[in-house]
């Protein structure tokens, strides 16, 4: 989104933020140290740092949990997204399929998927299976609905134009409908990915032996607030990791929505065109 030369100015952009953050943390530390805030309820920033250091460096105990949760969220997401996209594509291609299947999807949508947690754990056990299943179930709907909406919102003028060029149904679908649906689909995938992480964590709260959710409840109930906040920050880290991966893909695939990417792609295509013309 930024111009390349923006890069040179990044300290100017980041420094005020950093200054504010440091000031806030300092104020917080001071408030706790001066005894005006309860240390058990609100740990000091330095205690949280110490907990992070312990979790990540001295003990290194978080990695196992971190990667288990990450894997649960990603696998759940892949399954949920796969089913959602397959169903959305089928629905957009067949009126009958849509008419008779989408009501069930709507019913699923209005049910809070989280309510299935105990049942899914009963079905899939205490291991990773149940976490993946819950993640898949609750990330299904945003992806399904966005993809279907995207595929259905066709511009009649453009479709007519395509048909006037003698395009086949298949060409209309792949050349017109799918590209037009991509922005919305990616928006759905982004929401879905965050939702999948929520599913994994909630299932871990309910019953599990490993994962950041387990860590979180353990620390919380031992009233070790510093460590639970450190764990929360780890979840944020997982969330950011997933979010930016999706953002990156979005940037690559739906390049025409971003100015900077658009000019990059247009330069690349111009180059390819030129070298093709030489041959």
């Amino acid at each position, binding site marked *: 989104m930024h111009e390349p030369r923006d890069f040179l100015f990044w300290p100017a952009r980041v420094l*005020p*933020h950093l200054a*504010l953050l440091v000031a806030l943390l300092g104020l917080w530390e001071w408030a706790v140290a001066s005894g005006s805030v309860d240390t058990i*309820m609100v740990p000091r920033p330095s205690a949280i740092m110490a907990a992070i250091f312990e979790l990540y460096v001295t003990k290194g105990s978080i990695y196992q949990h971190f990667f288990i949760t990450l894997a649960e969220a990603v696998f759940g997401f892949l399954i949920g997204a796969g089913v959602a996209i397959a169903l959305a594509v089928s629905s957009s291609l067949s009126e009958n399929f849509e*008419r*008779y299947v989408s*009501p069930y999807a709507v*019913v699923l*949508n*209005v*049910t*809070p*998927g*989280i*309510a*299935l*947690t*105990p*049942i899914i*754990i*009963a*079905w899939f056990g205490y291991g990773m299976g149940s976490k993946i299943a819950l993640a898949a179930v609750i990330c299904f709907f945003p992806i399904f609905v966005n993809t279907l909406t995207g595929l259905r919102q066709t511009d009649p003028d453009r479709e007519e134009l395509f048909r006037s060029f003698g395009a086949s149904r298949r060409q209309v679908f792949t050349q017109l409908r799918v590209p037009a649906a991509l922005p919305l689909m990616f928006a759905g995938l982004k929401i879905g990915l*965050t939702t999948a*992480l*929520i599913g994994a*964590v*909630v299932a871990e*709260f*309910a019953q599990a032996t490993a994962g*950041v*959710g387990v860590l*979180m*409840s353990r620390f*919380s*109930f031992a*009233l070790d*607030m510093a460590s*639970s*906040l450190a764990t*929360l920050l780890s*979840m*944020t880290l997982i*969330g*950011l990791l*997933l*979010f930016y991966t999706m953002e990156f893909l979005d940037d690559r695939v739906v390049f025409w929505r971003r100015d900077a990417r658009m000019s990059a792609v247009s330069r690349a295509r111009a180059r390819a065109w030129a070298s093709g013309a030489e041959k």
Partner: protein
Amino acid sequence: MADVVTQMAATGGKSLRQRQNATHIGIFLTLILLWELGALMGWLDPLFFPAPSAILTSFWRIYFAQGNIWYHLYVSLGLVFAGFTAGSILGIGLGAVVGMNGLVRRFLQPYVIVLEATPRIAVAPLLIAALGFGATSKIAIIMLVCFFAPFINTLSGVINVDRDRMELMRSLGASKLQVLRKLVLPEAVPVIMAGERLALTSALSGVLVAEFIQRDQGIGTLILTYTRNLNMASAFACILTLTLIGFLIFKGMEKLDHHIAYWKNEAGLRRVGAKRAQAWATAQRGQSNA
């Protein structure tokens, strides 16, 4: 899509619509019958798929024979209402303030991104530990999961206000408060309502998670207990209850949306237009009488 259906019905496609409805019901009944049959023949593990008849019996039991679900529903929905109200007021208010103030927005942006990426419901154990077991921590959890969607939507509604209209307001010498009240908020209403819809759904999830952890009362606790006791039919009945509640919420919010953002639908335009013309005429008459 509903429009298409009604339209078809209106233009003499009645028999087609009836046929489609029949097909719907047919498919549904076939599925249920197959399921029942499967349970009856022992092909389906009752632990996984309790028979439809068993679920129906459970419905009867938890609603009437035993009648124990009412209390839990009452508890959970009360919490949802409290947390949702508090969370959305906070979200909309903060969203408007942050949206109108460029400097605050700039400094808050990284925190918003971080908050967006965090699975916010994960704070549940922490809040329970800090605030203790009971309603307070549950409401805090619901508030927290509700807060975000109205906040973000109000914020983006406020930021994306139409540029020309903004200039118009400025050229008419409107104050900041007037711009907010007369242009920004009304223009953002549809987006804010969409946020409220998400918030209400999240509130339902929030109360469930809080109850899963606290295991004292409420519909979440009920589902958990039934599942633990391997009474799957009753657990399913509870979940279907939530489906119904979810559906009612969905419909209710849709109605509310139509009502509040009346200028986005034909019927609303006609209704409000007529009402205003009437009010105007009454005022005019009062004027001439005086």
